[in-house]
C-alpha cells in the first residue's frame, strides 16, 4: 500500500434506506423488505438482501416487485429520515478523515493518502459508523477511486476489501464489463456485440480496435477502465447548488386547477427544506413532464436570493400559468438554484469578518 500514489477508500452503506427502516422497525429484521413509492408508477428505491433473493433490486418497478415477492413488506420512503441518518454517518466519516467526497446520501470516497495507518482508519470508520448508527457499510480500498468503488461492492454487505490495481484486474477479469462504473448497459451491449463479454477480454483488446469501434475518446477510456486505471482525485465536499422537489402523479393531471395545488405542496416541501438548511437561491424553476414524456422547463431569476414560501410559490405559479400545459401532465417539479448557504457563506477571497463572541460562545 505504501507504494500507491493514492490511498482511496470507498464507503457504501449496505441497503441504506432499508437498513434505516429496520433500525426503527426491528420486528421486520430477516424479512424481505422493500422501500418503494406507492403510486402505480413507483419504483423500488432499496430492497433488503432477503428481498434481493427474489429478484427485487433498486429501480425494479414496484408493481413487478409485488409480483416477484408478494410476501415482502413494502414501506414508503421517508427521505427526511434518510437524510438525517446520512448526516449522522457522514459526521462520523468527517471526524476521522479530512478529505471526503460524499456521493449521494449513502456513499463517500475517503482520501487516506497522507494518513499513517490508512487501513486502520478505514476500519475505525466502519466500526464507528456501526456503533454510532447501528448501520453497516461496506468499504473498499485501493490506489484509485475506481478500484475502491469496485472493491466496496465485491463483498457486500458488511464487506472490507483491499485491492491493488493488479489484484483488482485479476479478481474481476472474468466479470462482465458492466461491473465497472462508467460502462453502462448500452456500452456493455455494444461490447458484447464485439464478443467482449468480460473485463479480462476488454483489457486485452487492442486499443486501436477499441478506438476504431467506439471513437478515440470512449475507446481509450474503456481500455483504461478495464485495466482499472483511474487518475481522479478525491474531491472535497461538494455543496449543493440547487434544491428541488418533484413528483410523478399516480394518474396524469390536466388543467391548472388540478396542477396548482400539487405545485403548492411541492413548494411547501421545498421551502421547509431550504429553511432548514439555510439555503437561499435566486433562480426558481419548474419542470413539467407531459403524458408523452416530453419535458418542459421554465425558470426565472430573481434579484435577490430567497427561501421564502411566498416568493418561491408565487414565481413557480406564474411560470406554470404562463406555460399552461395543454396535454395531461405526468410529472411536476420545482427547484431553487444558485444557492448560497447562510452561515457557511463567508465569502471566498473577500472574507466576511466575524464578531469575537469569546469563550463559552
Amino acid at each position: 500500500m505504501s507504494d500507491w500514489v493514492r490511498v482511496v477508500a470507498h464507503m457504501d452503506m449496505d441497503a441504506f434506506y432499508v437498513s434505516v427502516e429496520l433500525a426503527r422497525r426491528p420486528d421486520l429484521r430477516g424479512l424481505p423488505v422493500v422501500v418503494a413509492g406507492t403510486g402505480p408508477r413507483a419504483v423500488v428505491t432499496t430492497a433488503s438482501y432477503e428481498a434481493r433473493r427474489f429478484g427485487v433490486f433498486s429501480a425494479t418497478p414496484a408493481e413487478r416487485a409485488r409480483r416477484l415477492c408478494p410476501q415482502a413488506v413494502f414501506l414508503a420512503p421517508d427521505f427526511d429520515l434518510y437524510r438525517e441518518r446520512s448526516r449522522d454517518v457522514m459526521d462520523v466519516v468527517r471526524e476521522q478523515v479530512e478529505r471526503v467526497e460524499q456521493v449521494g446520501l449513502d456513499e463517500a470516497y475517503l482520501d487516506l493518502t497522507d494518513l499513517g495507518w490508512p487501513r486502520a482508519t478505514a476500519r475505525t470508520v466502519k466500526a464507528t459508523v456501526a456503533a454510532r448508527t447501528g448501520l453497516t457499510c461496506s468499504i473498499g480500498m485501493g490506489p484509485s477511486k475506481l478500484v475502491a468503488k469496485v472493491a466496496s461492492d465485491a463483498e457486500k454487505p458488511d464487506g472490507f476489501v483491499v485491492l491493488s490495481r493488479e489484484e483488482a484486474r485479476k479478481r474481476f477479469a472474468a466479470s462482465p464489463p458492466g461491473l465497472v462504473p462508467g460502462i453502462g448497459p448500452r456500452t456493455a451491449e455494444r461490447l458484447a456485440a464485439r464478443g467482449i463479454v468480460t473485463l479480462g477480454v476488454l483489457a486485452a483488446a487492442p486499443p486501436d480496435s477499441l478506438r476504431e469501434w467506439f471513437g478515440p475518446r470512449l475507446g481509450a477510456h474503456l481500455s483504461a477502465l478495464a485495466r482499472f486505471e483511474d487518475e481522479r482525485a478525491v474531491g472535497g465536499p461538494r455543496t449543493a447548488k440547487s434544491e428541488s422537489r418533484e413528483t410523478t402523479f399516480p394518474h396524469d393531471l390536466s388543467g391548472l386547477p388540478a396542477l396548482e395545488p400539487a405545485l403548492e405542496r411541492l413548494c411547501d416541501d421545498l421551502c421547509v427544506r431550504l429553511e432548514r438548511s439555510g439555503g437561499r437561491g435566486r433562480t426558481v424553476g419548474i419542470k413539467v413532464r407531459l403524458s408523452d414524456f416530453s419535458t418542459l422547463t421554465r425558470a426565472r431569476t430573481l434579484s435577490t436570493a430567497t427561501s421564502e414560501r411566498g416568493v418561491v410559490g408565487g414565481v413557480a405559479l406564474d411560470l406554470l400559468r404562463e406555460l399552461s400545459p395543454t396535454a395531461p401532465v405526468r410529472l411536476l417539479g420545482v427547484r431553487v438554484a444558485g444557492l448560497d448557504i447562510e452561515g457557511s457563506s463567508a465569502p471566498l477571497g473577500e472574507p466576511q469578518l466575524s464578531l469575537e463572541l469569546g469563550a463559552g460562545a
Partner: protein
Amino acid sequence: MKLSTSRETFLARLGIAVRGASTRSAIQALSGVLMRADADGLELQATDMELGIRVRTEASVEREGSVVLPGRLLLDVVRSMPEDQLSLEHRAAEQDVEVVSGPSRFHLRTLPSEDFPRLPEPGDAEPVRMPAGAFVETIGRVARSASRDETRPHLTGVLVSASGSRLRMVATDSYRLSVKETTLAEELSGEVEANVPARTLQELARVAAASAAEQIDIVALANQVVFRLGDVVLSSRLVEGRFPNYEQLLPDSFEHELRLRSNELLEVVRRVSLLAQKNAPLRLRFAEGELEVSAQTPDIGEARESLPVPFQGEEIEIGFNPEFFRDGLESTEGDELILKLISPLRPGLIQSGDDGGFTYLVMPIRLNV
C-alpha cells in the same frame, strides 16, 4: 372519539397546529396531530420535540377520546372536503378515523398515540403577561440576525429579557448582532430571561398575526418556555449553552457618526445590491460630503451610485455583505438612522435616529482593494 365541527374553523386551527409537527423524525407520531376531545371541545397538539403547539377549537363532542393522525395528510383531507359540516369518528377496531363531509367518506389510519410526547405544562407558575403587539414587533426587529446554522446551536436563539417596563431581545449569528429595547406601556408583573429558538418566536409571530389576542402569557421553566396566546399554547425547549456576552462586542467609541435619511440610503443599497452577486461585497466609499455605494460581480456587471452625506475626514472604503447591511437598514424605524464606523476592518453600527432602542452591529467584509 366522535365529534362534528365546521370545516372552516377546524381547518384554520389545524393549520396552526400542524406547523408544530415534525417533517423528519424517526418517531412516526411526531409527524402527527394529537386530537383530544373532551367536554369542552377539541384540542389539537403537535410537536417535533423542540417546538410544541396546542390549539383549542370548537366542536360538538359526542364521545370523548384522543387519537393521533398524520398531520399533513389530515390537513390536505380537511382542506379538500366538499361541505362545511365535518364529522370525525375514531373506530378503534379498525385503527382508523372516519372523516365524513357530505358525500365524502375517508378512513385515515391512526398513528401510535403512545409515542406522542406530553407537552410541557406551565403548571402553577405565575405567567408574565406581555402586550402581544410590542412583543411581536420586537421579534421582527431581531430574529433575522439569529443563526440558521444548526452546527452552531447556541446562536440559533434570541435572548429575551424583560423586567419592569423594559423588553429586550438580542440575536447574533456572529456576523451581525441585533439588539432591540422596547419600552412597554405598563410595568410587567414579573421577569423573563430566556434564550428562545428564533424559529419558536417566528412561529409565535405568525400565530399572533392571525389572532385577536392582545396579550401573550409567558412562563419560563427550567429548560422550556411556554407562550399562551388566546387559545393557542406554544411551548419550546430553550437554547442550550450560554448566550454570548454581547455587550462587550459593542465598541466604546467610533471614528465617524453620520445621520442619514433611512429611505434614501435603503433605496440606493437595494438598487446597487442587485449587482453584488456570488458573495460579492457591497462597497461603501466615504469621502468629504459624499458616500459612493458600489458593487461589482465578475462576468455580471457593476453598479455605483453616490449620495450626499455629512462625512468629514480622510476617505475610507468599507465592504459589507449586502444582505446583512440591508437587514440592518430595514430593521431601523423612523426617517433617520445613525451609521457609526471606525475603520474598514472594524464593525459598523446602525441605530434608529430617533432613539428607537434599536442597535445593529455588522462586521465588514475584507476588501481586496
